[in-house]
């Protein structure tokens, strides 16, 4: 039974950000992730937006951590070589009624100390965004976009470099509180820890229940997205949002460019029964297309190359009309159990600020001493397609597999696939490769590169290729051999 000071449950963006922040100190840290990779749930299926903070009620934790997180992202993205684009955002009004809402939003933003907000007329919107239909808009320059799964991977892997232990496919079965430590039973054995950080996202209530009676419930709320082909990247440069529909407690269908040059339509908002019901539905797909076409009339159905959904962790019922804020607190019943509850949007933006908050909570209980040799830089996943020709030639000279393109849609080389497969977390599913090097993410959706990736897994990593999984350990790709 190994003893740790900190056990983080959940390898989403929150758990991973906390792991990295804590890895700056002399601490023994372990992270349990039930999926086959980090960012396997809510953290990978969202808009990838770095929010400005205009949508959260003033003085709420959401507003505070969002604005603070937004600021941290400038430095963080550089350190972790995670792509980020400060595209800015237009919240658009379609009629006079909605224009009044824009003014309200601007006021909230000013209270939250969001800089550079400006109400602008259609002409100015259309000068920058000629394909958008609107009456007027609120310009929010501090909004941006990133790749949420790549960020989570970088946070997690960088923390591994700094001594954190990550265990994938590890399910917490039970937790017991002994005098001054927790005993955590998992499918990979029993672990002891002084602190537990409950960053289990949609499963946060299950962790609480293992120790105490929860005073909240989880209301999973699904958001569906459509992805457009890169051919349509020209449609927008910035984020295009509608007036938030307060009564539904979400930001409404928006149109978001991604760092990779696709466009996202979505999300929808629908309360569902199961926390893992990530299906997409015909009805919502139609709504997304219809609403998107109202904003950008030239969008065509055939532009869609993919559909997916993500689930928000809401801890307030749909009819609740107060402030549905994050809850970040050290349990009163079981001090040392630090719960992070209801981390929904703007959770991604808030993650680095939440991580600092958790460090603060812990520092009240134990003395933290900073490492002098913390490695803040992480740039494992350099991309062939981003390199200058000179660099490309150099890389190929050093290692010929940089010259062998495996995924032609995204121009991913064999070297990048091998690099992705040798990740420090030990994730070896098809999805974990896709999220690290983009092979299979393009327009053919793996039609051409899957065979090469499977071949490399067999040849270079000696894996039994008939046992490869797509994502979870039950999502086998194959059933065996054709001929034995």
């Amino acid at each position, binding site marked *: 039974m190994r003893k740790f000071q900190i056990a983080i449950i959940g390898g989403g963006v929150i758990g991973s950000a906390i792991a990295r922040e804590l890895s700056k100190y002399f601490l023994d840290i372990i992270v349990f992730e039930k999926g086959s990779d980090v960012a396997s749930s809510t953290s990978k299926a969202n808009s990838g937006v770095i929010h400005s903070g205009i949508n959260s009620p003033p003085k709420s934790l959401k507003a505070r951590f969002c604005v603070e997180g937004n600021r941290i992202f400038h430095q963080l993205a550089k350190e972790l070589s995670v792509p980020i684009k400060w595209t800015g955002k237009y919240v658009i009004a379609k009629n006079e009624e909605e224009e009044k809402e824009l003014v309200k939003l601007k006021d909230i933003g000013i209270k939250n100390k969001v800089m550079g907000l400006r109400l602008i007329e259609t002409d100015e919107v259309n000068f920058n965004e000629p394909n958008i239909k609107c009456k007027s808009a609120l310009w929010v320059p501090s909004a941006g976009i990133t790749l949420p799964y790549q960020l989570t991977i970088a946070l997690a892997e960088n923390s591994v470099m700094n001594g954190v232990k990550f265990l994938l496919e590890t399910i917490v079965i039970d937790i017991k509180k002994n005098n001054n430590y927790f005993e955590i039973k998992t499918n990979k054995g029993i672990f002891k820890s002084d602190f537990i950080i409950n960053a289990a996202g949609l499963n946060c209530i299950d962790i609480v229940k293992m120790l105490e009676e929860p005073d909240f419930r989880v209301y999973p709320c699904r958001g569906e997205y459509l992805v457009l082909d890169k051919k349509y990247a020209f449609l927008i440069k910035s984020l295009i949002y509608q007036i938030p529909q307060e009564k539904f407690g979400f930001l409404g269908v928006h149109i978001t460019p991604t760092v990779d040059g696709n466009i996202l339509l979505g999300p929808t908002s629908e309360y569902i029964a199961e926390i893992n019901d990530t*299906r997409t539905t015909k009805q919502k797909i139609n709504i997304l297309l219809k609403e998107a076409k109202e904003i950008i009339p030239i969008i065509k159905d055939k532009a869609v190359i993919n559909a997916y959904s993500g689930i928000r962790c809401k801890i307030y019922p749909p009819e609740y009309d107060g402030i549905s804020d994050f809850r970040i607190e050290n349990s009163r019943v079981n001090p040392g159990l630090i719960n992070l509850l209801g981390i929904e949007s703007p959770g991604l933006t808030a993650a680095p600020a939440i991580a600092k908050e958790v460090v603060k909570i812990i520092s009240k209980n134990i003395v933290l001493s900073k490492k002098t040799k913390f490695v803040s830089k992480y740039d494992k996943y350099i991309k062939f397609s981003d390199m200058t020709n000179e660099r490309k030639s150099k890389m190929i000279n050093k290692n010929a597999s940089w010259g062998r393109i495996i995924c032609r849609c995204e*121009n991913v080389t064999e070297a990048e696939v091998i690099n992705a497969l040798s990740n420090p977390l030990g994730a070896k599913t098809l999805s974990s490769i896709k999220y690290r090097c983009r092979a299979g993410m393009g327009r053919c959706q793996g039609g051409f590169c899957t*065979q090469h990736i499977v071949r490399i897994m067999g040849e270079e990593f000696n894996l039994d290729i008939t046992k490869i999984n797509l994502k979870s350990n039950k999502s086998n790709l194959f059933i065996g051999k054709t001929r034995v």
Partner: protein
Amino acid sequence: MEKLGCEKKLINVTNDVSVIGSGPAGIVAGISAREFGAKKVIIIDRNNWIGGILPQCIHDGFGIEEMGISLTGPEYIDKYVEKAKNLGITVMKETTVLKINNELEIFAVSRKGLMKIKSKSIILAMGCREKTRGNLIIPGDRPSGIYTAGLAQTFINLYNIMPGKNIVILGSGDVGLIMARRLKIEGANVKGVIEILPYPNGLPRNVVQCLKDYNIPLLLSHTITSIEGKDRINKVIISKVDKNKKPIPDTEKIIKCDTLLLSVGLIPENEISRNAGIILDDSTGGPLVNQYYRTTIPGIYACGNCLQVYDTVDLLSIHAKIAGKQSAKNAIKGKNHNNYAEKNIIVKPGTGIKYIIPQMINKTGIIDFSFRLEKPNKFSKISFELNKNEIFRGNLKYSNSTGIINMKVKIPNYSPKSILEVILNE
């Protein structure tokens, strides 16, 4: 790419004709170019084998129209590979073309490094890719066990891997039909082929020898309305569809399965062409070409499935030969040969016609057209109208499918900016 300083690091090659893609179209066009006088012909392919998709097409039926014999895919391509070798054509394997430009320069990469290949003519033969679940926007879960039919074929025939046991196939395209039989032969339980159209999409011969021979159900006017399974797919929900291909409520049925194959159409691969500024035809998905299969950039020709998705390799090869021959002529006579004349005819698909190739003509005399009907149509006549005057009327010999139809038509003298419209008369 063009930046100074990098030039030195590029491997420079000069050719008469460079072909992108070593599938049947590329090989056949390359051979033809060599036979018609091009001295140095190279074929570039990203894979470590020659022949594109054919080595995995182990079923027979290749070469019937072209050679009068029925060969398997590997046998068919072997005949041409031998010929290409004897003619001294170089195939650069594991070499990926990154881009081409209107100066007829190809930028490519291989394990040897970045390279720039200058050519007098370029032939595009990049083939096509399969439509995916995303293209159809099928709702439901996102489990494993969903494959395009061609990828399943790759794994079964080349990698000795079985993708699944209980199979549902969406789409009755030829690859899907062939895979239905292939999987059945390998002991899988093929539960049915679901087709949204009221008629099968593949060739009649494949419906007979792949489905009927093996008692595999074909459900016409049906589609999949949901995919279920959290980890691996465990069922699909199918519905009948109405005339507008919309699912009819209360006709849902569950089919349990562990694998879903998609055979729902092919998309010509033209990212390289588009980036080079070649104009594409929205209805074929391939470049606009003239009667010599020349694209809108002088010196660049197109053939094979990147030009239009063919039903058989035979017609594909016949057309690729013409593209190869013309590229050689262009290489020999220099850049200005058969430049787009001011005088040309725009060819348009009219009523009942899905698309037609060539889309442009700049000569009189016999022109070989290939086109598809919008839907199967027995006993029909086709008229070719040049500026609204009928110049040719042909009977459709067989048109009980949406297969490619070939017609030779004599083009008389015409005035500049003429329009040739092709119409289906019922």
